[in-house]
């Protein structure tokens, strides 16, 4: 932490707070409250997915006297999921482009990349819906066996996270289009970008641990 003499006290509206979110005022960390909030939330979310992934790893091959039906791993279509994973990863690239363009005040490009990111995320979700449907048709329901419960819960929670991200991206697109968000609030897009990248990274872990490792 900076010593007292180094602190700029010329603007003592100390601690940028929710009610003045259009002004960049000094905070102790140098990061805005909103950004620290997102980092803290993502830290918490790591543990959520950590617990869900551990649960899946523990339960995926378990059998009991009443076990029947295929396990999730029996039905994986690796090429298909690889493609949808690639689509989701590419959406991180477009998200970066959206953040960069609003920081350069290129609002039209920002809108384009926001919408592209949301569209790529939607393709991923559509792929997940297709995957769930085909698994169900092949006899793997949520209650079929222990690995199916664990699989649908883990990937379902990730899907909900992606869907919330899409809602946020579309909302941002509306607000940027309506002019409520200009280059001075580029950080809002940046923070949503943090969330989006996090959700992508979690998918890399899930894809590697759940789909690829036998």
């Amino acid at each position: 932490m900076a010593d007292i003499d180094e602190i700029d006290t010329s603007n003592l509206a100390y601690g940028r707070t929710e009610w003045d979110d259009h002004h960049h005022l000094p905070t102790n960390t140098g990061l805005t409250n909103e950004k620290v909030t997102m980092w803290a939330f993502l830290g918490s979310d790591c543990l959520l997915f950590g617990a869900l992934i551990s649960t899946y790893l523990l339960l995926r091959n378990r059998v009991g006297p009443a076990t029947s039906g295929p396990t999730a791993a029996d039905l994986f279509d690796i090429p298909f999921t690889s493609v949808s994973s690639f689509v989701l990863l590419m959406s991180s690239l477009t998200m970066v482009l959206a953040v960069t363009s609003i920081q350069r005040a290129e609002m039209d490009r920002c809108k384009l990349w926001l919408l592209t990111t949301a569209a790529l995320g939607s393709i991923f979700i559509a792929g997940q819906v297709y995957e769930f449907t085909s698994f169900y048709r092949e006899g793997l329901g949520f209650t079929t066996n222990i690995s199916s419960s664990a699989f649908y819960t883990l990937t379902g929670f990730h899907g909900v996270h992606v869907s919330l991200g899409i809602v946020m991206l579309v909302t941002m697109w509306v607000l940027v289009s309506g002019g409520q968000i200009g280059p001075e609030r580029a950080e809002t897009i940046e923070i949503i970008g943090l969330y989006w990248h996090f959700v992508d990274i979690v998918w890399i872990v899930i894809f590697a641990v759940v789909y690829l490792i036998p």
Partner: protein
Amino acid sequence: MAITEERPEILELESGDTSFSTGAFARPTNASGWRAWFFTVDHKKIGIMYGAVAMFWFLWGGIEALLIRAQLFTPNGTVLTAEQYNQIFTMHGTTMVFLVIMPLAAAFANYIVPLQIGARDVAFPRMNALGLWLFVFGGIFLNLSWFLGGGPDGGWFAYAPNTGVTFSPGAGMDFYALGLQIAGIASLVGAINLIVTVLNMRAPGMTMLRMPVFTWMILVVQFLLLFALPVITVALILLSFDRTFDANFFNVAMGADPLLWQHLFWIFGHPEVYILILPSFGIVSETLPVFSRKPLFGYSVIVISGAAIGFMGWGVWAHHMFVSGLGPVGVAAFSATTMFIAVPTGVKILNWIATMWGGNLRFTVPMMFSISLVSMFTIGGLSGVMHSVAPADTQQTDTYFIVAHFHYVLFGGALMGLFAGMYYWWPKAFGYRLSESLGKWHFWILLVGFNMTFGPMHIVGLQGMARRHSRYGPEDGFDFWNAVVSIGAFVILIGMIVFAVNIVRSWLGYKAGTVPQEPADPWDARTLEWAIPSPTPEHNFDYVPVVTDIDDFWHKKYQPDENGKLRKVADGNEIAQKGDQHPHLPSPSYWPIVLAAGLPLIALGLIYNLWVSGIGLVLLLGAMFGWSLEPATDPNAGHDDHGDDHGPDANTPDGDEGGDAEVAEEAPVG
């Protein structure tokens, strides 16, 4: 104004952007009456409400405890049936942990932390209100189960598959799983908010290692909450999915592993233990130096050991599971980590004793409660270290010895510290002190009753009396000590009645003028919350305090003279801020309470009828929409309340410069 004589700038907040103010309804105005409390976003009112609601649940959890003790007063007790007994002890534990100690700590965290770091409010005032109302509705939801077919009956740790539909067919465990989920969201929201507040909004000069120890401990607790809550969230989700949607997570016929729940629960549950105790450690780290008139012995060691407890608390969870068949390697590893974690705790105890050693002790009520924390917690800590020896723990598991242990740390530790905090900060929150004489009665009756209740449990526990059993036989030989324990429980009740009488009488006396109005600094204290008037003005600080030391306020009052002896150079009440500014404050809002009301509806719907969930969801989404369209500060508020000359824009530093200069002569602090 010694705190601020160098830089008497106004702490002024920018108003919201008017171009974006499209709230759906007119905003509430915080004039007076119940609206001033229900729609407030003021961290002080929120803190007081946390405390009041937690004390209500304390009464409720206490009644449950007394029912347990009435049942066990004699062998073959007939007060409760076995089913009722299961529900009562489950809800006693759940209530005391989640609805009493955690929110009481949240009450102090909300009220005190922004004051100790010199901030105007927390980082996100509406989120703060949301946390409060989620806790309130979560508690109500949990206890609705009593009226809808019986309470949860699986113990507060709710071991699955024992808590699955097969073995717990009533709706009680659904209320448990969903109610804790709601309370968990409340804690998560509060944790993130306080983390951001402490990391970002400290007064200039207050580096992390100049922060008061209470604020430090609260920060550690919020990080523990941040990382522990998602784990129990997952556990509760799995349980709910099993119970509601027929998933198979704990279905042994499908190959489920009962240890899954135990691991998930205790990975949350052991950090939770430190979540419960560290706030009280922080409180006594404030009170002991004040009433010993000495600085805290080894400030940085106390802070670092608190953080070390926070880290090491993640590596000891399986000591709750020594008898579950972990295997020798796991048991040995967790034995060792459990022994190690006693080290930083012991360091704290020694530091507190060294703080008191040679000090000029003042035996006020908060001091007495603080000393009782140090001594009673040490007893509980010692029996805790006994449990780290796995063979001994195997003998003691599920006996009353364990019950004695965790009541010594949670009642003798956490609650004693929280009572110390109540007596200590009462004048800051309400402007008057609680009666010292009634307070001493409260303390001594409580201390005697506490030891009568939980001391003999060590004995019957080692004799083999099992916990969670609704009956013991006359041939077991437990009847004498159980009668003592039950009498002790009612002595605790008497102590708490004295406390209630104290609150009411002191308040009535204050209204009638017989109990005096307290000045800013009634205890000659050390930290920033005492540098502003009592009770705290709505805007906390007139000016941003500038901090140059640990215990900065103390150093403004006491300076070493030429011989190196400490000399009083200023009176705390004179150099305290006057509380006469009227800055622009965050405006009250309907949305936190509306949003919070959506969640119990969704949860009820999951148990009974999904249409109810739909209504809850609509309420939730509508409130989110209204919330995000509403600027945090009403651009129209604040001006007419105080007249134009006191509006935020009219505040200039000039108004107080004279006063500053005057005091600065008395207290020339560099």
